[in-house]
């Protein structure tokens, strides 16, 4: 069997696991809507002196956070196989090269994330009144960002030997992505130390790229750091996951 077919089989298996509980997608969308429709609208009503809509400003962040949660669900599957179900050794006996297997898990994490955030991305596109080509660019931004969070989640799954540690890494990543980025506030008001940290945060570049779409521009210079960070985090995830396969 060709390598690409085997990768497709691994991804298909992950999707079967993912779709085993379809309510999850609904629940994730409700999660997003609470973030956007409750917190977003409330904060937007409170902050109305900036000369622009604060609600629209923070809206893409809600979708990016949902993407983070979805990516960590994939990581949790990897972690469960390794620690709870003890099926990783069996999976590694299948006729798939370990490198292909590890890379496929990352890609399936990204694709699962994309399926989860598709409704949210449509909602944001409607709020931003994006044309179809710009909507596709929005999806591309989400896809690149999902690589970063899939890398983080697989890293957490590879490093954590207990649920407690996995949950801790997950919430630390979410805090870092949310509060040390420009998700809630413009970079101009960030304290210098936070501004430095936020420059190394994929959320910063993803949320700003998405906001730029609202003004009818594709800000390519924002793509470069986002892509660079995503590739770096995916590489870290790949290396750490691959290390767990050496017995």
């Amino acid at each position, binding site marked *: 069997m060709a390598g690409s077919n085997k990768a497709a089989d691994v991804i298909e298996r992950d999707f079967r696991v993912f779709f085993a*509980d379809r309510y999850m997608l609904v629940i994730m969308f409700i999660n997003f809507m609470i973030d956007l429709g409750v917190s977003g609208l409330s904060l937007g009503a409170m902050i109305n*002196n900036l000369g622009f809509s604060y609600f629209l400003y923070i809206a893409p962040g809600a979708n990016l956070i949902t993407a983070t949660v979805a990516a960590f669900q994939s990581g949790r599957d990897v972690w469960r196989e390794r620690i*709870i179900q003890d099926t990783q050794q069996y999976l590694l006996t299948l006729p798939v090269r370990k490198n292909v297997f590890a890379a496929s898990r990352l890609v399936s994490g990204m694709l699962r994330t994309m399926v989860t955030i598709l409704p949210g991305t449509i909602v944001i596109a409607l709020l931003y009144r994006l044309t179809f080509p710009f909507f596709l660019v929005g999806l591309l931004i989400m896809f690149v960002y999902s690589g970063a969070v899939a890398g983080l989640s697989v890293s957490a799954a590879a490093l954590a030997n207990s649920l407690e540690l996995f949950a801790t890494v997950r919430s*630390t990543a979410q805090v870092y992505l949310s*509060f*040390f980025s420009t998700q809630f*506030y413009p970079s101009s008001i960030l304290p210098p130390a*936070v501004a430095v940290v936020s420059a190394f945060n994929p959320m910063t570049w993803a949320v700003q790229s998405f906001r730029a779409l609202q003004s009818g521009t594709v800000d390519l210079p924002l793509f470069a750091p986002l892509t660079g960070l995503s590739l770096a985090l995916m590489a870290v995830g790949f290396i750490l996951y691959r290390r767990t396969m050496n017995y």
Partner: protein
Amino acid sequence: MSEKPSTLFVIWALIERDLRTLVKSPFILINRTIFFLIQLFVFAFLVSKLASSLGFNYFEFYSVGAVVSTITSIAFIIGEDLFEEEELGLLDYLLSLPFGHSLFVIGRALGGAVRGLIYVTPMMVLVAYVDGYFSPVGIAGSLLVVFVLATGISGLSITLAMMIRNANRFDIVIALAELATVRVSAAIYPLAYMPKVLQPVAAYSPVTSASDIVRAIFLPGYSAGIYETVVLVLFVAIFFGLGSAFLFRKIEGGRFE
């Protein structure tokens, strides 16, 4: 066979066991502490700069909400513990111990609340200091309020852990429950600024009641009274009952008692 253990002994044993679990989970403690400090000194500080045109100090408002939302999120952990115990087969053993399932729910809910209380006490003191409130009696009263809230949230979390079988779904549902209880409340923004359709729901939230009572104690210009107390107590009573009923159904497959 030896005598059946007394109720108080059982409750204490269950609480002690949950406290031991907390001590063995330093990552969670460190993580939540850092999260709280970041919420307060990064998020609240920066957002209150943006919300400077409001007629009140948003940083102070948020500081109380941050403690209440933190204890809410810690109280939810007890359900995660129960779910993990169920997955590992440990729950069946615990439920075979010689005491009733209601006592088990009470003990675990109180265990969840006590460890939440131990955890947020330094945060409450820090917030009181930051907000310029220094009465030990008032701070103790505020801790009692969040303890009552945490007991109810623990009951809710136990109920969810007993209702859901799938690990991934439990993970998402518990995150959703945590998000909904904190966000659809006046913990982090005033009711008046919430979407109109949600205001009546948020007004009945126990998280709103707990936040309002603590704000009334700490901050000038805020008030709370009997209504908020009744909402809190009702919430605790309902989820003690539900948690107990679902555990009973799990053990016996029988009707709600």
